[in-house]
């Protein structure tokens, strides 16, 4: 596993300590880079400086530990898991630990690190080092107090013990420890001695969530703040020509109507007035660039697949010759629509632009990037932008893009008032950064009962799969292997969506492998395991996945799902996929109800290295699997002349409780560093369900959403 950068840095530059005026000791550290040598820690906790340090630990005189995490929570549990790692190496009782969001200090608090699927993977080493280094300082302090050698002392559960059996609590030595040199060459715990990591820990914000405390961006308000509802182009490709705001302005609570760029903002004393005012605007738009429809996209993507203008992402052997010599060729085309993110908390942002500074508050994953962009747009100095992050009501990739924050800043800049932009659900779905529509064509050659060639072609909107993806499974397993990509440029905005590319690619590939397995008359999981043998011991450094770990994950799911031993009327489908450094295998159990498939259960096996917080990890996996099934089954989003055709939950279907299967998750036992968890559960889910449906009905699903095809299959059954 990759070592964190900070490990190569001197401990002194990565961690600093000081005594607090109010008692206790403060440890500041920087997870991603060194702290400036001149950086100093405050002695007053309200002055925490998040520029040089991006996280802090406070140990009180009574031995209570507070971990100040700058990481906002997006729903992936990092706000709980990251402090767990520190507390483990620090060796304190979790009941004595509290986690606080960094205190807001507009002067210093601006460059936070956004949480994401990879936070734990990247933070693992540095967080452990921080906890362990702090513990060693406390031990050194106790040893000094006793006049003994530190190596004769040890610390556990917040208490330091020496050879005579004397004890001192952490809180009793902080005054001495704060003035000691930061020790180097720290020894980390053996994972088998972990007392917190690997144990179920409840979400640190749980109490606030269940009592309705204002945690989210949309909950933020300030004195004098007004609400903004924005009228954006109704179609991608439209330009505003004129508008009439007379009726809008006459609505109670509407304060102002302003044009900015190609948009109109209605300001109101409350959200309702602003939204009503927006609806009352009479606007005229004209076509500026092309107005695209889903039919156009289908046409263009199929044209790409039928053509020969591709970039080669990876090629092994000679695919052409292998196809020429094949006994049989199988070729399938898999198709997916655009998808909106639909975070439960609609996009929103607060801005207060004054002559002195630009104050921004809200849910965003890219604070530095967004601050920079806003500085440019408003022509302000970067240090005048103060961005405060809040808990996020879901992200799924949408909150990587700061369009909503830019809007808030622009509006506040014009009216010089604190404002909050709130998207309605319709705004949120119609002004998205969508998962782009993608089509895959996969072709396989079979010769002498073996898979001899594999060619994957990707035709996507606005961009193609990341370079590494061509080196995921089955790269290296098949002698003649090729991945080709090409894209069509659209004016519809697209972006990352939970498990970018793999969220659909995994479905396509694992459906295809299921079909090849039938063709070769071999069990699907066995086919994958057989193929994995070909890549074991490879010297090809481009290969991303581990065949050994993937095989073990598959074996675990086979065992836990009773693969192949289900009762009459239960049909199983299998799927396995590697993404975000994590190996996942899934088995879906379905039953037929009036000819319609119902997903009853999904068994998941995951190898994500050490599981930091099993309680949180299972939540992520369950959510990812159900999300994957929901979108594969129902996610349908289309355009007509640049206009999205479904913009609220009455027309756009998300999976709900009654359609939800039971998800049982199991983790491969591991001593390896933790890897991503927020995303990798999702990609295999659609394939597992599609493969189970094939077993039940004989229908091969090649397009998402499944529901549009299943209706036909139902009428077949009924007719």
């Amino acid at each position, binding site marked *: 596993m990759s070592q964190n950068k900070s490990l190569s840095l001197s401990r002194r530059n990565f961690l600093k300590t000081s005594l607090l005026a109010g008692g206790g000791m403060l440890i500041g550290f920087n997870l991603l880079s060194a702290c400036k040598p001149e950086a100093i820690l405050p002695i007053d906790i309200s002055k925490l400086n998040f520029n040089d340090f991006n996280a802090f630990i406070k140990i009180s005189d009574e031995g209570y530990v507070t971990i100040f995490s700058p990481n906002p929570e997006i729903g992936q549990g990092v706000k709980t898991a990251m402090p767990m790692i520190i507390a483990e190496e620090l060796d304190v009782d979790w009941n004595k630990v509290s986690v606080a969001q960094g205190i807001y200090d507009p002067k210093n608090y601006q460059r936070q690190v956004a949480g994401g699927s990879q936070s734990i993977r990247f933070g693992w080493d540095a967080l452990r080092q921080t906890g362990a280094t702090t513990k060693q300082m406390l031990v050194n302090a106790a040893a000094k107090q006793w006049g003994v050698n530190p190596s004769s002392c040890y610390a556990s559960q917040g208490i330091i013990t020496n050879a005579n059996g004397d004890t001192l609590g952490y809180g009793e030595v902080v005054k001495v420890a704060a003035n000691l040199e930061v020790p180097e060459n720290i020894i980390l715990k053996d994972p088998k001695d972990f007392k917190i990591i690997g144990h179920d820990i409840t979400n640190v914000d749980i109490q606030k969530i269940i*009592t309705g405390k204002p945690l989210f961006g949309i909950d933020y308000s300030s004195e004098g703040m007004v609400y903004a509802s924005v009228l954006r182009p109704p179609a991608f490709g439209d330009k505003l020509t004129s508008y009439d705001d007379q009726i809008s302005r006459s609505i109670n609570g509407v304060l102002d109507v302003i044009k900015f760029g190609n948009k109109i903002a209605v300001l109101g004393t409350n959200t309702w007035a602003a939204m009503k005012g927006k609806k009352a605007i009479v606007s005229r738009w004209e076509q500026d660039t092309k107005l695209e429809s889903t039919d156009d996209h289908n046409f263009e993507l199929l044209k790409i697949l039928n053509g020969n203008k591709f970039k080669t992402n990876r090629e092994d052997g000679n695919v052409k010759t292998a196809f020429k010599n094949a006994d049989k060729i199988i070729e399938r085309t898999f198709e997916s629509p655009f998808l909106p993110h639909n975070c439960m908390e609609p996009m929103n942002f607060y801005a207060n632009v004054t002559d002195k500074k630009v104050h921004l508050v809200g849910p965003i994953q890219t604070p530095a990037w967004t601050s920079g962009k806003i500085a440019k747009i408003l022509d302000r100095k970067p240090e005048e932008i103060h961005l405060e992050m809040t808990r996020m009501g879901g992200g799924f990739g949408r909150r990587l893009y700061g369009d909503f924050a830019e809007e808030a800043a622009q509006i506040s800049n014009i009216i010089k008032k604190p404002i909050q932009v709130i998207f309605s659900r319709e705004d949120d779905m119609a002004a998205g950064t969508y998962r782009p529509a993608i089509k895959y064509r996969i072709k396989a050659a079979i010769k002498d009962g073996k898979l001899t060639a594999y060619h994957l072609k990707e035709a996507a909107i606005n961009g193609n799969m990341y370079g590494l993806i061509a080196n995921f499974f089955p790269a290296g397993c098949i002698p003649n292997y090729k991945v080709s990509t090409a894209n069509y440029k659209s004016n519809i905005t697209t972006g990352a969506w939970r498990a970018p590319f793999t969220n659909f690619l995994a479905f396509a590939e694992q459906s295809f492998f299921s079909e090849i397995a039938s063709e070769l008359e071999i069990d699907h999981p066995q086919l994958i395991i057989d193929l994995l043998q070909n890549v074991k011991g490879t010297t090809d450094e481009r290969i991303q996945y581990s065949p050994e770990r993937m095989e073990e994950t598959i074996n675990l799911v086979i065992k836990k799902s009773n693969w192949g031993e289900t009762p009459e009327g239960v049909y199983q489908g299998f799927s396995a996929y590697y993404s975000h450094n994590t190996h996942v295998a899934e088995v879906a159990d379905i039953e037929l109800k009036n000819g319609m498939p119902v997903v009853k259960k999904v068994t998941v096996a995951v190898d994500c290295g050490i599981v930091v917080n099993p309680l949180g990890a299972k939540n992520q996996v369950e959510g990812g699997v*159900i999300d994957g099934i929901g979108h594969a089954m129902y996610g349908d989003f289309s355009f007509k002349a640049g206009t999205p055709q479904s913009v609220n*939950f009455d027309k756009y279907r998300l999976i*709900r409780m009654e359609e939800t299967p039971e998800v049982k998750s199991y983790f491969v036992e591991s001593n390896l560093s933790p890897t991503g968890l927020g995303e990798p559960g999702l990609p295999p889910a659609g394939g597992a369900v599609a493969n189970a449906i094939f077993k039940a009905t004989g229908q091969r699903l090649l397009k998402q959403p499944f529901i549009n095809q299943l209706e036909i299959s139902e009428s077949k059954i009924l007719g």
Partner: protein
Amino acid sequence: MTNYTLKINGKKVTVTADEDTPLLWVLRDELLMKGTKFGCGIAQCGACTVHVNNIAVRSCSLPISSISEESITTIEGLSENGTHPVQLAWKEIDVPQCGYCQAGQIMTASAFLKVQPAPTKDEIREAMHGNICRCASYNRIEKAVKLAAKNS
């Protein structure tokens, strides 16, 4: 604009609002009670669920003019310090992911358990069907409702 006197979480409050203003926005923007959430505005997601005379209601679609003597309970007033059996069960099962939908889920579940204190699995799934959780914490919601039923 009209003055309305509402009974919210046992307290009388007076607000000035347009008659078509949904209760959701009165709570959030006028009274700054931000616990009740906005998700869709068209009674499709359940994020805005509150109790009106103990019945679960979508506050995004309830105009303030239609409320008079009814007593309204929001997530902030469901219990003191989160000690309602449903809240305790939510904590024990560790239901939330992003957490945004959970106030609405808890309000739907607590109203449901009042009329159906010993629900079957299917009844729970039906009762909670109107509340979307985009993070898909549905398995845990189901478990937590079951646990709350057992404990109350």
